[in-house]
C-alpha cells in the first residue's frame, strides 16, 4: 500500500461504501452489476480487470477496434475480485455484460455457478492455443474461457547491488545458491529480497513457485513441500533478509520497495518487465529447490461470454466475434502487448520475443507454467485458503 495501488484502492472504496457491517450482505445487490446497455442497442458491454487502462489507452483502443461491424464497445475496468462478484449479481439479475474478462483461478467457480457459457458453441475458435495456459478455462472438456496470453513470475535482480556484493546471478541454480546470494547481498550492506505474502490469492500466487519447486502437489497442501517452502520464505524474514511488511504487502507494494534500489532481489511478475528495464533491473527464472526452473502458476485472465437468461443470438454472435478478433493470429500480438502479456500461442509469442528481447528470459517460465485450477478444479479455492493461512502463520512467526 505505498504509491499507486490500482488494485487496492477501488477495493477499499468498496469496503467503505458496501462493507459497513449492518447493511453488509444486504447491499450485495446494490454494489453489484452495473447494468449493461439496454437490449436492442448495438453496444456490446465489456468488463475487464484492468481499470488502470483508461479510455484512450492502447488496450482500450485495441478492444474497441475489434468491435464487429455495426457495433460499438463500452468497456468497463474494475478490480480483479470485483469482476467475478459483480458478474455473479449481474447474471442473477440478468444484466450481465456481453464479454467478461475473468482472472484464471476463478474460472472453475464461474463455470460451476453458471456465470459463463461454452465458447465453441458460440463460434469462438480455441484451436492452436497452449494447453498449459488454457487449462483453467477448460472444465469437463468444454472451454468456457479463452486466455489471450499469460504472465509469469520471475526473480528480478538489481545488477548494481549484486555487483557491489560480488554476486554473479548466473551462480543461482537452486535454493541453496539463492540463499547464499541473498546473504552476500545483505552482508554487503544492501537489503535482500522482496515478495508479496499478503493474505489471499495474491500471496499464494507468489508462494506457489516455491511450493512447486519443492515438488509440492496442490492435492496435498499440508505436505512436507509446503513446510520447506514456508521455511524458505519465512526464513528470509526471520534473518532480516526480507522486510517484515511482506506479510501485508501486495505485489505492487513489494515492487515499490524494489524500486527504491536498495534491494538485491524481488519476486515479481513479467508485467513489470518494461518498468524493470527502465530501472536497469534484470531477471532470472525462479529456481527449484534442487536445481532447475521451478514451475510458476499461469497468470492472466480469460475472455468469457457470460450467461443471459434472455438469450439474444445477434448479441452473442457479435460478442463471440469480438473475442475471436482479439485472439486472431493477426491481432493476438497487439492484444498481448497492450497489457504486457506473452501470447498463449507459440507462433505469436515467438514473434513477440523477436520484436522485443525484453521477453526472452520469460519464455521458459511461461512454457513450463501450470494452471492453478487445472488439476484440482473448484477444490483450489479451499486449498488456496489453507495455503494462505499457513503461509501467513509462517511469515508472522
Amino acid at each position, binding site marked *: 500500500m505505498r504509491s499507486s495501488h490500482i488494485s487496492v484502492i477501488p477495493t477499499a472504496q468498496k469496503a467503505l461504501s458496501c462493507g459497513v457491517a449492518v447493511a453488509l*450482505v*444486504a447491499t450485495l445487490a446494490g454494489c453489484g452489476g452495473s447494468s449493461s446497455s439496454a437490449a436492442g442497442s448495438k453496444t456490446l458491454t465489456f468488463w475487464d480487470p484492468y481499470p488502470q487502462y483508461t479510455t484512450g489507452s492502447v488496450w482500450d483502443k485495441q478492444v474497441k477496434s475489434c468491435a464487429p461491424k455495426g457495433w460499438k464497445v463500452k468497456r468497463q475496468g474494475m478490480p480483479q475480485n470485483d469482476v467475478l462478484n459483480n458478474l455473479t449479481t449481474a447474471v442473477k439479475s440478468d444484466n450481465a455484460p456481453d464479454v467478461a474478462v475473468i482472472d484464471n*483461478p476463478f474460472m472453475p467457480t464461474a463455470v460451476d455457478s453458471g*456465470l459463463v457459457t461454452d465458447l465453441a458453441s458460440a463460434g469462438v475458435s480455441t484451436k492452436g492455443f497452449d494447453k498449459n495456459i488454457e487449462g483453467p478455462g477448460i472444465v469437463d472438456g468444454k472451454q468456457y474461457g479463452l486466455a489471450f496470453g499469460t504472465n509469469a513470475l520471475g526473480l528480478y535482480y538489481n545488477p548494481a547491488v549484486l555487483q557491489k556484493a560480488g554476486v554473479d546471478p548466473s551462480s543461482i541454480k537452486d535454493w541453496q545458491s539463492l540463499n547464499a546470494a541473498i546473504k552476500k547481498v545483505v552482508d554487503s550492506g544492501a537489503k535482500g529480497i522482496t515478495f508479496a505474502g499478503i*493474505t489471499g490469492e495474491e500471496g499464494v500466487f507468489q508462494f506457489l513457485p516455491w511450493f512447486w519447486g519443492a515438488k509440492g502437489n496442490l492435492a496435498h497442501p499440508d505436505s512436507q513441500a509446503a513446510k520447506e517452502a514456508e521455511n524458505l520464505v519465512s526464513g528470509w524474514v526471520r534473518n532480516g533478509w526480507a*522486510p517484515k511488511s511482506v506479510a*501485508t504487502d501486495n505485489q505492487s507494494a513489494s515492487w515499490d520497495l524494489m524500486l527504491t534500489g536498495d534491494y538485491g532481489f524481488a519476486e515479481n511478475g513479467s508485467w513489470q518487465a518494461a518498468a524493470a528495464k527502465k530501472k536497469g533491473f534484470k531477471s532470472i527464472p525462479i529456481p527449484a529447490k534442487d536445481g532447475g526452473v521451478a514451475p510458476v502458476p499461469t497468470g492472466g485472465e480469460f475472455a468469457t461470454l457470460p450467461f443471459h437468461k434472455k438469450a439474444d443470438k445477434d448479441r452473442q454472435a457479435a460478442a463471440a466475434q469480438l473475442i475471436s478478433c482479439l485472439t486472431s493470429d493477426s491481432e493476438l500480438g497487439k492484444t498481448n502487448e497492450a497489457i504486457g502479456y506473452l501470447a498463449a500461442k507459440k507462433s505469436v509469442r515467438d514473434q513477440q520475443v523477436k520484436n522485443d528481447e525484453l521477453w526472452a528470459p520469460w519464455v521458459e517460465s511461461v512454457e513450463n507454467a501450470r494452471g492453478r485450477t487445472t488439476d484440482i478444479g473448484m477444490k483450489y479455492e479451499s486449498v488456496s485458503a489453507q495455503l*494462505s493461512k499457513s503461509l501467513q502463520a509462517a511469515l508472522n512467526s
Partner: protein
Amino acid sequence: MHASSVSASARRAHGSPARRRLHRLTPTRWAAIGFAAPLILYMLIFYVVPLVQNVSMSLHRYSRRTFVTGEAPFVGLDIYKEVLSTNEFWTTLGQTLIFVVVSIVFQYSIGLALAVFFNQNFKLSATLRGIFLVPWLLPPMISGTIWQWMMDADNGIINKFLGMLGIAPVWWLQAGHSLWAVIIANIWLGIPFNLVILYSGLQNISKDLYEAASLDGCNGWQKFWKITFPLLRPVTMITLLLGFVYTLKTVDIIWLMTQGSGTSQTLATWSYAMAFGKGYSSTIRYSEASVVGTLLILIALIFAFIYIGVQRREEKA
C-alpha cells in the same frame, strides 16, 4: 391482489364498514398520509427490505451457484449453529469486544479531556480545536494507509522514533498483536467525534454553576467531578452509544492496515471477508456472512435498548 382490490371497491360501493372507515379519513388525514408516504417508502426500500434480505440469507444455504439460480435451500437456524460452534467465532467475538471497549474508553476519555481543555476558550483554542478535527475529515483510505506506513516494522516512522529513544523496534502489524495496532489507529480516528459532541455538551452547562462553586471554595478537580461530569451524563450516554455502534461496524481502517489478518479480525471484517470472498479465501460465504451481520445488528440493538432503558429511568427520576 387485483381480485381483492376489486372486491374491496365492490364492498365500498355497497356502504360496507370499509366505506365508513374510508369516510372518516378527512382531507387533512389524507394530506398527512401523503406527506409521510415518501418517508415510509424510503424506509421500506432502503432499511426494511435489505434487513429482511439479510436475515433471509442467513436462513438459506447460499453459495455462489445457489445465489445465481435462486435455489438456496431453507435450513432454519443451522448456519447459526454452525457459525456459533466454531472456535473462530468466539475468538473473533472476543477480539471485537476488546477492539470496541478499549477504543471507546480511550476515545471518550481523551475526547473529554480535550473538550474540557478547549472549553477554557484561550487564545488559539478555536484553531487548535480545528486541527484536532483533521482525523475526522480525512478519508479513512488515507488515514489507514498512513498508519500502515507509520507502523511499518522496518521503515516506519514510529519505530524510527522509538529507536531514537533507545527502544527496540516493534513489529506492529504482526498477526499476534495486530489487534493493538488497529486499536491505536482507531482511537486516533475516534477522538474528534467525541471531542465535538462533548465540547458542545460543555457549552450548555451554565457558567453560573462554576461561579457558585468557586465561591464555595471548590477546586478545579472538584468542579469537574461534581458539576461537569454529572451534567454531561446525557451527552456522555449518546456519545458512548454512537461510538459503540460506529466501532462495532468498523471495517475500513482495519482492512486497510491488515486485511483483518491475525488478531485484528473483528466480526465486521470477518463478515466482509466472507461476503465478498476477500481475506484468506476467495470462496464466497453469503450465508455465514449474513449470520455474522445479523448477530452484529442484534448486539447493537441490545445496547440501544439498554440506552433507551437508562434514559427512561433518568427522565422518571
